[in-house]
């Protein structure tokens, strides 16, 4: 039986390589009973639509970023708040533990079974003017993703949140439609944004995990034995993805530094963290979310 996987990245990206590896492992270990086939490069649609297709049964497995899941699985919103996690390692400890299982369980009503957690690094701000502290962001036009949390975050810093399609960001910075944007190392590098916005401040405001999910109907149609094989393969693919991701981050950082961009590392992020208080007031309104956030932050 062929099952269809969705992925937004090009075939050589860490997520893509790991998903292909997942497919090989499952096909081999189930002796062809399940043959996962991943369609890369968003051939089956953009992420928002892929989530809908997962819900209605058009695709069988995928790796989703948690930001577009916010409006469907409210619990995920907590993980996309700025400084919900202290570091990438901290994020790993949280999602690999009981909270990860809790988040995965919260996805079942949306017809998804969460099996493993991939990495997408930490996102930081960059601009075409020097960024040395939180004050330098004030008044800048910053491109944001289509997300309420991101708009609130940028506005909490006193900047002008400007939604622009991802593909137009480069020319927009180049010509001053916006002054900057925010992203992780590999995106900052591969998009060439470092050429037009060479000031990168490592405030690491969001560290958002990505989740490997299977369509619940597909999952329920399998024997317990096959489910175990698939779960194991997903977990192993996540290990591979995290390794590849770390390598990719290093390469990208090297390219950006060699190109002469100004990288500002922050010893103390407290000014950024404090500035985010209004975001927490706006989005952590319900008892359950507050409790979840507290437990995330209490995780060692």
């Amino acid at each position: 039986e062929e099952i269809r996987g969705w992925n937004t990245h090009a075939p050589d990206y860490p997520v893509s390589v790991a998903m292909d590896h997942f497919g090989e492992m499952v096909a081999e270990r189930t002796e062809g009973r399940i043959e996962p086939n991943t369609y890369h490069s968003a051939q089956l649609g953009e992420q928002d639509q892929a989530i809908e297709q997962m819900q209605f049964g058009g695709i069988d497995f995928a790796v989703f970023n948690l930001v577009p899941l916010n409006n469907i699985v409210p619990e995920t919103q907590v993980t996309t708040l700025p400084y919900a996690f202290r570091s990438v390692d901290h994020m790993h400890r949280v999602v690999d533990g009981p909270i990860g299982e809790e988040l995965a369980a919260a996805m079942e009503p949306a017809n998804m079974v969460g099996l493993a957690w991939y990495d997408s690094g930490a996102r930081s701000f960059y601009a075409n003017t020097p960024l040395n502290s939180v004050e330098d962001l004030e008044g800048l036009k910053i491109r944001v993703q289509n997300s309420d949390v991101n708009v609130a975050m940028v506005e909490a810093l006193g900047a002008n949140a400007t939604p622009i399609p991802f593909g137009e960001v480069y020319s927009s910075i180049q010509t001053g439609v916006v002054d900057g944007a925010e992203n992780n190392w590999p995106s900052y590098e591969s998009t060439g944004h470092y050429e037009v916005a060479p000031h990168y401040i490592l405030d690491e405001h969001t560290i958002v995990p990505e989740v490997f999910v299977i369509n619940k109907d597909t999952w329920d149609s399998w024997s317990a034995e096959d489910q175990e094989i698939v779960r194991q393969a997903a977990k192993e693919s996540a290990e591979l993805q995290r390794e590849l991701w770390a390598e990719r981050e290093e390469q990208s950082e090297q390219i950006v530094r060699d190109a002469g961009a100004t990288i500002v590392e922050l010893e103390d992020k407290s000014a950024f963290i404090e500035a985010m208080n209004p975001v927490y007031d706006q989005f952590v309104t319900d008892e359950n979310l507050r409790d979840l956030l507290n437990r995330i932050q209490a995780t060692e």
Partner: protein
Amino acid sequence: MRFKVLDYLVTLVVAVSGGALVLLVAITGWQVYGRYVLNDTPTWAERLSLLLILIVALPLSAVGLRENIHLGISYIVEMLPRRAQYGFELLRTLLLGAFGVAMSVYSYELVVGTWNRAIPLLGVPQGVQYLPLVITGGLIVIFMAERMWFLLRHPAEWLERTEETI
């Protein structure tokens, strides 16, 4: 060969669509003004524009079926005898009507299935973006029913007409 009351329906669709186009220009202009003059970009503008274009285009495309303005190839069928052409006209009407039904029914499922989540930066339910399709499917069904009615009631008239563009 047409129901007068449906002419009024067409006028309504055209007025809404035309108004939406003018509004679309105005919103995009406002977006530029906000970013450069007010230094406060209206973050809702882009998403709202994407909803408006659906209102401009979709219901009017159903009207386009009624008025036969969509591009297609008619000359293959036109080589056939007039009676056979009549048969194909019936078949097309039936197929388009069925497509209209499918459009309405399945888009309604999409509306319901995505109603409980909001479109980011806009706050309205995501299901709203599928509503124009539900309406369009309904309009297609109405217009194809009208065509079918006249085809079946007045076949002779249809057969006598020449130079009908499809």
